[in-house]
């Protein structure tokens, strides 16, 4: 980062996460340590190895979508639209008009939406129809509904948000697997830093609780087999952890150039002060225990923020609850923060809302921004049995009051992607 660079702040947050509706419901839930992991209700999971997931139970019509919007869009787009509506309302900005302090020029508004698996649910449901439940390889178009091109190519999600908020600036879907939600916010910030937009609607959404997604993680035993006790199935950093719990959901942030936000006297949650991504170039699903590349991403994101490692107060962990991830990530935090790793709090909200693939990165950024704003750190639920390889302060089971000046949220995903984003309290950074 060079001096005089444009800076990026968060001025709106919207969340649609398992077990709650809306940002405040989400915050209440995760700070109470409540879990939303249950036996799957969307389909009969009895033939699956992992039968647990964290579902979002929502009525898209009641939350403001039209019948047409629901009909034409996959669940991942519907959730993104609902989260975006909340974020935009929260920001106090008016979109589409331009010409006022709180009405940005539509040409200067961008969209970056992350998703790992896009419209996989709709693609599968439609496939069942056109193939007669897998009977015909030559699928029958007479049973297809429209909008399958949109389902095939997930950029439809960015289009829906651009149309919704008359955003004529650069728009894209970011699809880097399970780091999509961090990368989408990181890229959105870069659009503002580089002067290509003043406001970016940035977030992520995924709806992977469908048979094909559950089956593909079953076969590699990445998901939990703890079907007897769904409410306590996600156990990040605990020695008993046995895989992640599938989740779904969306979070959207309104990112705004600092001076743009200041001119309209906007309420600022935090600054997005650094973002970096690295690849491990090792294995599509495997992680080396040393965490070198994630540590490098953290180091670079802090360097961009001009923050020393000892200023970090909170790490929002990837904490998926797989054996290898939690060990890898603990090593990465120790490697990048040094002695400070012993002092920081580090928690995984996946213990409560599961792992919603690409969406979770943005949901976790939302949680981190709220933690910075409110001086309260969400816990890691279901934490009981320490693992000698995971020996940091994971905020077991109970939220903790803590003034956080600088927080990091990290993610790790299939393909070897490792991402880190740094959020800073506005008062620390903006005297």
């Amino acid at each position, binding site marked *: 980062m060079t001096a005089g660079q444009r800076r990026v702040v968060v001025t709106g947050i919207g969340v649609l996460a398992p077990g709650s509706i809306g940002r405040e419901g989400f915050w209440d839930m995760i700070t109470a340590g409540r879990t939303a992991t249950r036996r799957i209700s969307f389909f009969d999971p009895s*033939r*699956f*190895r992992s039968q647990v997931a964290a579902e979002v139970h929502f009525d898209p019509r009641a939350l403001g979508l039209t019948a047409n919007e629901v009909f*034409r869009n996959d669940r991942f787009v519907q959730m993104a639209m609902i989260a975006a509506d909340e974020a935009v309302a929260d920001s106090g900005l008016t979109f589409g008009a331009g010409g006022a302090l709180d009405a940005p020029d539509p040409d200067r508004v961008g969209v970056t939406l992350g998703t*790992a*698996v896009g419209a996989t649910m709709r*693609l599968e449901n439609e*496939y069942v129809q*056109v*193939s007669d439940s*897998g009977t015909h*390889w*030559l*699928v*029958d*178009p007479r049973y*297809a509904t429209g909008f*399958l*091109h*949109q389902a*095939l*190519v997930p*950029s*439809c999600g*960015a*289009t*829906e948000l*651009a*149309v919704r908020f008359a*955003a*004529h*600036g*650069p*728009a*894209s*879907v*970011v*699809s*880097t*697997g399970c780091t999509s939600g961090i*990368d989408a916010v990181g*890229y959105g910030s870069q659009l503002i830093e*580089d002067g*290509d937009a003043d406001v970016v609607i940035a977030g992520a959404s995924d709806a992977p609780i469908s*048979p*094909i997604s559950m*089956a*593909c*993680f079953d*076969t*590699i035993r990445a998901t939990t087999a703890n079907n007897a006790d769904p409410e306590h199935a996600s156990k990040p950093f605990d020695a008993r952890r046995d895989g992640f719990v599938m989740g779904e959901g969306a979070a959207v942030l309104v990112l705004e150039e600092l001076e743009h936000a200041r001119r309209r006297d906007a309420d600022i949650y935090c600054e997005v002060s650094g973002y970096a*991504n*690295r*690849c491990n*170039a*090792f294995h*599509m*699903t495997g992680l080396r225990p040393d965490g070198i590349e994630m540590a490098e991403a953290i180091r670079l994101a802090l360097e961009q923020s001009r923050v020393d490692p000892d200023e970090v107060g909170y790490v929002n962990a990837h904490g998926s609850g797989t054996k290898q991830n939690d060990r890898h990530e603990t090593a990465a935090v120790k490697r990048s923060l040094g002695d400070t790793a012993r002092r920081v709090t580090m928690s995984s909200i996946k213990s409560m809302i599961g792992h919603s693939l690409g969406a979770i990165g943005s949901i976790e950024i939302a949680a981190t921004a709220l933690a910075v704003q409110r001086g309260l750190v969400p816990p890691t639920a279901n934490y009981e049995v320490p693992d000698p390889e995971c020996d940091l302060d994971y905020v077991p089971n109970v939220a903790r009051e803590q003034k956080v000046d600088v927080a990091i949220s990290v993610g790790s995903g*299939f*393909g070897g992607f490792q991402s880190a984003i740094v959020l800073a309290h506005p008062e620390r950074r903006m005297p």
Partner: protein
Amino acid sequence: MSGLLVTGLGVVAPTGVGAEAHWAALLAEQPAIGPIEGFDTSPYGVSLAGQIPGFDPAEHVAPQLMVQTDRWTWTSLAAATLAAQDAAYEPPEDAYATSVFLASGSGGNEFSQHEIQGLWAKGPKSVGAYQSIAWFYAASTGQISIRDGYKGPSGVVVTEGAGGLDSIGWARRVTRRGTPAVLVGGTEAGICPYALLCQATSGRLSTATRPEDAYKPFDRRANGHVIGEGGAILLVEEPSAARARGASKVWGEVAGYGATHDAHHHEDPAPDATQYARAIRLSLADAGVAPEDVDLVVADAAGTPELDALELQALAAVFGGRATPVPVTAPSSWTGRLMAGGSALNVATALLAMRDGIVPGIAHLDDPVDAPGVDLVRHPRVQDLSTVVVVARGFGGFNSSIVLRRHTGEM
């Protein structure tokens, strides 16, 4: 300030494997669109596609990697190798110095169709261990990074047909932040029953059965497009880094980029092409190039009357004030539209055209529409090219534009 340099081209396209094979086919006006092989297309009302002739994945991809990946990723792995070879790029000691930032459109289609088919016909245990890594949109990027040991900040952008250009736009953000070399572009492989059906629901595919009747951009008989597979991956480098490693070949310079969104409707384009024109103007301003200085435009060429008219409207808005009409070509008319791979391939084609001073023509342009201010190139033409603009659109309203300039500096 000098822009990023393109130092390597990797083409895997219906016109051929390798940049030179592709280029020779274009100049020879060899049609690469033909009847879809491999399955009976009669239920879909679509019978033609641009398929890659003689693409033997075993020549490009190791056997253990082939079983883990979709045809889409095979073409990406092959194109990435070709680009690195073309650039004589040896991975530097610093593994973080190289990034992979590709566009993706529809993921690993055929692989996924097989797995979903098995799941519903036989049950969850029939789903293989590689579905979770073969289908998702980041699969090709991840596999290239792993195979070639590139640890830089990698990414995947999805903007349908505009993706190839947008990956280059994002690569500029990557290099600005300190990573000197990025593999960009992308490929696509959507010629299997389910992916074809999905694409056909867009209503934009031609149902003609003879190639000469099917994909006819800017012709009065335009009636939709033909899909194709493959694309291009390019190596772009920050100039001082390219110089430092002794890069001997420079295809051209990425001088400017701009992107906008129509934000008009979830599938219909905006009726006025204002945002399309603005994307082009943004890229020209970014490059410091006036409309008069542009020697050629490589068009998106959607191939429906409405979308073609909007593109000509955007070009007229930007270039209409010139003393001479701006030459416009559409090499996708020879290959079909390759979604995310298509705009990347157009960048490769533009650089080949610049090298040889030859503009390829537009296929099957028998009866051109009225195109004021635009010179539609019907057959290969000798013309000196210093500045070429490549434009692209993605379904739903994505508009992107790139300015390529001949590299004149010393290496």
